[in-house]
């Protein structure tokens, strides 16, 4: 690991991909894709989930071999057979799912794979020094001695970037880096990207979020169904980018009728819930959700929203307080009973709580209905009915798959989420709870999911929606409850100015301001 002595201009790397084609059996994931990343630019690769962005980057990073096409670095064609070749060529990658050892420190993770050693012993001191040096140089504050699992997601990601930078790479691939971040962390990351660009690094930024692309990219390449659709300048209007990405015009605003709210369906009174570390995550929450209205819970993630919802669902015990559904006390009910009482639940993390990836789509569609007519009885299941009903759901909810008997894990994120939503909406509901319903979901699917939520509201279901995306809450909710540190600070109408909502999310109330 030598010192970084190159000047910014020299460090920059020009990358060209020419006619990259990658097939998986009959499926062409990348079809003759060409793209050029100029030295020192942030090049956004925009496309829906399943468009072939990650495949392209895995080809570039040597994790997959292309069937045709070539990769040129600074004009010279190179063969990349694995990540080591990529790193040697000056290309680093930060994966969507971090490749960090949770129980190791930052410095240990950074040196993993090329451990500096002195006389057979690991040289911790020089690893620490390297981390400090890189983090100072690129303004990426990380503490070398901190243990990864204690760090927030945003900082873990910073560690991944530091790790890539210590390999002296000149081009960084960031694969969906903002999917796991809070809005604040996202802004910080965008700042970091600008800093890296200023330091002469090129960045390939893979995303499907238009706002971020417009905020940071120099150039945008849009990919749809394995092909490049075109390039655009960041000044292009959002609707145009969205249209290129999805292939048709997208309605970003959700039309909804005025719906007079009915009687109270969900009533939460003075609820207190502890999180896994037994800290009080929900600290005396009062909420009411009425039939035919959407109550949006806004707030930065980790302010008790997850615990609140889990407690309503019977997945987490309430320490005090009361939850009632249509006037019936359901506090302490088992999850199965809550679901049976007419509650639909879309959990926050679909890959952990929402789906069984190894199960077929059809099986996932009956995951909480398998013991009901016509899918099954006390002893047996009726696979025929399960598959038949799945065919209908797949069509109705626009789940893009070859067959409902494919494993759910083979679907893209947006389609996986549609499976969860289809399942929860396929029975009569009194209350629909959706936690982060569109996290990690492409624009086309977001539009669809929003429409379904509004449709559910219009037939008189009470909807409780938790989202850390303020845009989403504002677009869908009839009333917005802002949560901060386990409490509901205020319940406000969606017309409330953004600044005021932002302040509330940061814990500043009117009284404190004055």
């Amino acid at each position, binding site marked *: 690991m030598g010192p970084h002595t190159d000047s910014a201009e020299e460090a920059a790397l020009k990358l060209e991909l020419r006619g990259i084609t990658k*097939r*998986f*059996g*009959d*499926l*062409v*994931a990348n*079809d003759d894709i060409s793209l050029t990343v100029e030295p020192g630019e942030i090049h956004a690769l925009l*496309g*829906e*989930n*399943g468009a*072939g*962005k*990650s*495949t*392209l980057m895995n080809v570039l990073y040597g994790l997959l071999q292309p*069937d045709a096409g070539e990769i040129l670095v600074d004009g010279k064609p190179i063969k990349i057979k694995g990540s080591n070749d990529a790193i040697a060529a000056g290309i680093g990658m930060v994966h969507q799912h971090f490749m960090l050892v949770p129980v190791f420190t930052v410095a240990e993770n950074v040196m993993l794979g090329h451990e500096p050693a002195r006389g057979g012993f690991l040289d911790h001191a020089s690893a620490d020094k390297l981390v400090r040096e890189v983090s100072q140089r690129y303004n990426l504050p990380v503490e070398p001695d901190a243990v990864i699992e204690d760090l927030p997601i945003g900082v873990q990601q910073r560690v991944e970037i530091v790790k890539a930078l210590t390999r002296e790479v000149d081009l960084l691939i960031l694969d969906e880096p903002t999917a796991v971040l809070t809005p604040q962390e996202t802004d910080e990351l965008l700042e970091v990207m600008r800093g890296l660009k200023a330091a002469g690094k090129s960045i390939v930024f893979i995303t499907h979020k238009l706002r971020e692309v417009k905020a940071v990219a120099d150039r945008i390449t849009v*990919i749809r169904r*394995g*092909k490049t659709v075109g390039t655009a300048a960041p000044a292009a209007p959002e609707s145009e980018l969205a249209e290129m990405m999805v*292939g048709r015009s997208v309605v970003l605003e959700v039309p909804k009728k005025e719906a007079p709210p009915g009687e109270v369906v969900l009533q939460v009174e003075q609820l207190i819930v502890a999180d896994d570390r037994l800290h009080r995550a929900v600290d005396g929450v009062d909420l009411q959700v009425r039939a035919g209205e959407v109550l949006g819970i806004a707030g930065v993630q980790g302010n008790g929203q997850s615990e609140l919802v889990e407690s309503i*669902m019977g*997945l987490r015990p309430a320490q005090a307080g009361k939850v009632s559904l249509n006037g019936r006390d359901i506090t302490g009910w088992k*999850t*199965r*009973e*809550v*679901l*049976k009482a007419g509650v639909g*639940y879309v959990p926050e993390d679909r890959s*952990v*709580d*929402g*789906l*069984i*990836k*190894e*199960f077929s789509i059809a*099986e996932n569609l009956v*995951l*909480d209905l*398998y013991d009901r007519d016509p899918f*099954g009885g006390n*002893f*047996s*299941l009726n*696979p025929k009915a399960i598959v038949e009903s799945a065919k209908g759901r797949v*069509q109705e909810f626009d789940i*893009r*798959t*070859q067959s409902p008997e*494919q*494993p759910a*894990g*083979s*679907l*893209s*994120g947006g*389609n996986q989420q549609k499976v969860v939503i289809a399942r929860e909406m396929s029975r009569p509901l009194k209350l629909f709870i959706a936690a982060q319903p569109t996290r990690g979901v492409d624009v086309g699917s977001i539009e669809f999911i929003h429409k379904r939520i509004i449709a559910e509201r219009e037939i008189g279901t009470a909807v409780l929606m938790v989202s850390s995306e303020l845009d989403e809450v504002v677009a869908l909710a009839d009333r917005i409850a802002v949560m901060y540190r386990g409490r509901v600070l205020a319940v406000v109408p969606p017309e409330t100015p953004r600044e005021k909502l932002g302040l509330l999310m940061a814990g500043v109330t009117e009284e404190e301001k004055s």
Partner: protein
Amino acid sequence: MTSATPEPEGTAPSPDKSPPHSEEGRPYWMVEVGKIGKHRREKTLWQRFKEELYADNSFTVSVLAVLLALAVGAVLMVLGNDTVRQQWAYFFYQPLKTLEMSWEFVAKAYTDMFKGAIVNPDTFNRWIWGMTTWQQVLRPISETLTNAAPLILTGLAVAIPFRAGLFNIGAQGQAIMGAIGAGTVGIALDLPAIINLPLAIIVGFLCGGLWGYLVGILKAKTGAHEVIVTIMLNYIAALFLGWYILRPAIKDPARTDAISKPVNESALLAKIFDPSLRVSLSIVLALLAAAAMAWLLNRGRFGFELRAVGHNPHAASTAGMKVGTTIAMTMALAGALAGLGGTTMVLGTATVLTDGVVGLIGFNGILVALLGRVKPWGVAAAGLLFGALQSGGQAMQTFAGVSNELVTVIQAMIVIFVAAPMLVKAIFRLRRSPSQAASAVLAKG
């Protein structure tokens, strides 16, 4: 995707190349669904069989693992026999003779194994000429089935919890408890066979089940790891059996060694071919159990819960399943199956309780489950194979003079090769299985 015949991998036109909207105005991917469906139906079963035959699917890998293990066994045989090994010192003088001698020795051993496990052609010929009885012809297969029955049951006892994400090392202890339960009924009661036999079987089933439930409930309520608990319960069960058979009510007063009174005739599993052949109802019991488990996993409600918990307990509990109860009941079921395995030993073959009444069926069950890919019918097939190896090993020892221990080595090698499929794929340069490749295509971009 217009051609009727399936194209070799990678050359078929891609679904992505079709126009975004078809004539009917349906979105492209809905059209694709129909076409792909047709494409699939056009591939006949035979074509798919041919495609899969030499590909890296689990069946081919398992078969090749068995062949590799037999090859390793052959090398060990040559090394283990003094005459043959010494001949190898003259390999460069008499290469042909050396190879011929080795080949003959190995071939004879494996032929004897086959004769002892499936059928002996000589016996068959003599039966044709009326020189021996049909019972003699069926004896090898009878031995194989007798050995296989308990292995299938303990194999299921390991495979079923595996599907729920639990590693049951305790089939041995559960089988012992089952043998104790069934044996006690058989020794103590002498009711009419129509009552006594089912009663003994049920008690054996329940005793094993209870022993398994103990593990499940500890896991569900306290989080105790099932591997640790089952290993410990194995010791407890084995030592309990040693103590139990010395009780005055159980011990055979006519014998000085640790052996129980014999099981009453009314509780013995009936012989299904002929009284002179050992094969009994136990193999029927084992195959019924495999069928029941196959039904349970594919069609049963509990099987659905079990698989859900095995793959993703978080999603299962979010969907309202009772994860703890499922774990406890799965272990109870596993224990009951192993208990049934022990039951077949005491009521079918041993007919007394001794220290080693269940042999090593619990541990061999782990191997059977792994070879059978933790699928019920796979376990049944693996159990039959292991049963055949064991009965063949006896014949090989008697006639070819190769130690029976070699069978243990072969069994272990099979499981090692099955557990390391990459090795088998590399040795035989297997093609990528079309079905496996298809499932590996991630829609994620």
